[in-house]
């Protein structure tokens, strides 16, 4: 019996915040993130006899959470066929010859691209633009920029093909760029 080193009474107060901070940007949904944290504690409690004390209590809980996030991605990967069929989204940016349309062509932002925007307003626009993306695109974004996972690993986690991945990323980038331009630069 090794779980004398586990301290379940303190789990929520010690780890709920950091587990949540890890989960939220990865699943892009506060309710889902809370549920995953809740389930992590429950699974950990049920598996407490398997805890060998090889990893710290914190790392052990994180491992459980990470597995739950991956399961969550897998489930979402199954919805991909549905979201991919919505091909009208990229078409909007380009004309019949696949060149920029007059309405959607990139404008001059008149900023120093090497610097940060450094305004609260910009980040709230970024957040609202990100929320307009499909959940799956948000997750791909998070995996790409937060975990520095490459395309192969993201495809594996989501169970999608690499061409699906590039279509997702391409659309997400086009949408995010257009949304930022419309709401931030032109406001």
């Amino acid at each position, binding site marked *: 019996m090794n779980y004398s080193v586990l301290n*379940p009474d303190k789990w929520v107060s010690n780890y*709920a915040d950091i587990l949540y901070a890890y989960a939220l*940007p990865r699943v892009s949904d506060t309710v889902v993130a809370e549920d995953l944290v809740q389930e992590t504690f429950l699974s950990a*409690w049920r598996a407490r006899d398997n805890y060998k004390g090889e990893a710290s209590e914190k790392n052990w809980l994180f491992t459980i959470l990470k597995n739950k996030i991956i399961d969550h991605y897998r489930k979402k990967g199954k919805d991909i066929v549905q979201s991919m069929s919505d091909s009208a989204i990229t078409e909007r940016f380009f004309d019949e010859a696949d060149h920029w349309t007059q309405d959607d062509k*990139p404008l001059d932002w008149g900023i120093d*691209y090497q610097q*940060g925007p450094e305004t609260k307003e910009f980040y709230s626009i970024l957040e609202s633009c990100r929320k307009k993306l499909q959940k799956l695109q948000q997750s791909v974004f998070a995996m790409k*920029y937060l975990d520095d996972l490459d395309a192969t690993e993201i495809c594996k986690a989501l169970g999608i093909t690499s061409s699906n991945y*590039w279509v997702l990323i391409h659309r997400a980038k*086009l949408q995010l760029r257009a949304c930022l331009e419309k709401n931030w630069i032109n406001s």
Partner: protein
Amino acid sequence: MGMLHITCKKATLLIIKKEEKKLSWLERWQLRGHLTICSLCRKFEIQSAFISRIAKEYLQSVHLLGEEKKEKIQERFEADRAGS
């Protein structure tokens, strides 16, 4: 219209791919050729890199759960433990 000629749609895809992986020899030539003649895609290239950088910084900012939600999680967790 040779194989070096690509559209803006294709060029933007290659720009995004390039941020993450090495393009093939052909893709590099296609993109280079396109960017020399297309100022819109040149603009897109700069803005895309900017968005990637900012998105990363933004996503890494910390979000907290809040006391109320923590209490809720604590309550449910205790109920689960009592039940199992």
